[in-house]
């Protein structure tokens, strides 16, 4: 747990080296550059204030990333929503998103359709390869709930991907 890290001695170096990837995480979670900026800055400032502890973590960047996710979810408790303009309601799921041409923009748009916890679970699992127990820990739920969240998120993404592919096909006709 308490492995010594180069970052421990230099929080400045940690910030300069890892802000980029932490911002990427926040951007995937919030879907908005300015919200991501706020989230990362708040989280890093808070973590730097307790750097003695953060710097001793086995992986300081993983520690801070967990804090980003925590802060993201904590800041969005209560009924909130997003305005999502869609041009077609998806209705035909397919087996695997990978079978569909997935673009950066389409994934960003599709992520925006997911509830916060589903989005966080997808990002942590598929981008950072976190196992169920770690995702469950940061989301504050059971592992079975994580699998359920991911399953529902994938179903939504598949449906949205199909709709997007259909629209693209129509546009090309």
């Amino acid at each position, binding site marked *: 747990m308490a492995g010594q890290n180069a970052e421990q001695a230099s*929080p*400045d170096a940690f*910030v*300069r080296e890892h*802000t*980029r990837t932490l*911002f*990427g*995480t*926040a*951007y*995937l979670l*919030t879907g*908005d*550059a*300015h*919200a*991501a*900026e*706020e989230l*990362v*800055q*708040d989280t*890093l*400032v808070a973590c*730097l*204030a307790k750097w003695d502890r953060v710097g001793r973590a086995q992986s300081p960047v993983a520690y801070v990333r967990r804090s980003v996710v925590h802060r993201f979810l904590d800041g969005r*408790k*209560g*009924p*909130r*929503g*997003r*305005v*999502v*303009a*869609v*041009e*077609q309601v998806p209705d035909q799921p397919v087996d*695997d*998103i*990978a079978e*569909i*041409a*997935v673009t*950066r923009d*389409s*994934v*960003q748009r599709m992520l925006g*359709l997911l*509830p916060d916890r589903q989005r966080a679970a*997808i990002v942590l*699992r*598929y*981008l950072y*390869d976190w196992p169920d127990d770690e995702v469950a820990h940061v989301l504050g739920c059971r592992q079975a709930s994580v*699998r359920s969240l*991911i*399953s529902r998120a*994938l179903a939504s993404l598949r449906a949205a991907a199909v709709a997007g592919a259909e629209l693209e096909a129509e546009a090309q006709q």
Partner: protein
Amino acid sequence: MTEPSRQPALRGALAELERTAPMPADLPDRVLDGAASRPPGHRSRWRRLAPLAAAVVVLVAAAAAAVISSSRPNPAPGVPDGTAPTPWQTFVNQSMRFSLRYPIFWRASPARFQSEFVAGIVFLSTEHVPTPCHTSHDRRSVACVIAPVRLDDGDVYILWAASSVLPKPRETALDRASGRPTTIDGHRAKVDVTGPAQRRWCQQSDGARIVEVSIAQGMHELIQMDACLAGSPQQLAALTQIVLRSARSVRLGS
């Protein structure tokens, strides 16, 4: 059970998004400045300013249309007949200290959505439309999915919302809004009337005109209206007048 390896395209797209996220180059410096200037136990100056600093105009979201299954014989219920005065009613959102008047022939549906930068106030339309906002099963989120439908002649569909804008030196939120300068309820405002091409959702809804109103509320916040109108040139002229009369009836802080 889902395995990461089963979603290579998703994983690749996520990685690409993470890698290309548009981070401001000076963010690390600001983080370090914020950490250095933060007194123990106090919120940093940046933190206090964060709600404004992080805000950006995203509004515009969308309002869209509704399938109008009108039972009214008048195909343009929002359009006055030119002689009789239009009866009006009042919509009030007390928490946002917002009120406005609108024709009694229109329907108002509270716009129950909120994001970091935009908070819905009310949808107005010439006929009742189901709210585009739906609460999730766990009741923790509300998603407003607004899809273009079809507007008939004489229809209007309006979204009022409050939005925050990223502050810039010597620039207010209203500076970024388009339109003719005016004043509404003592606040600086702008009014813009354009064709439907300015809003894809309006064009796809068979709308023929967009009316936008932006009312300054402080330096970095706006109360904004997007209205999509449909109909003949005569109907559009009458509807525009009504929409603007309704917009000019807005009262903030009441």
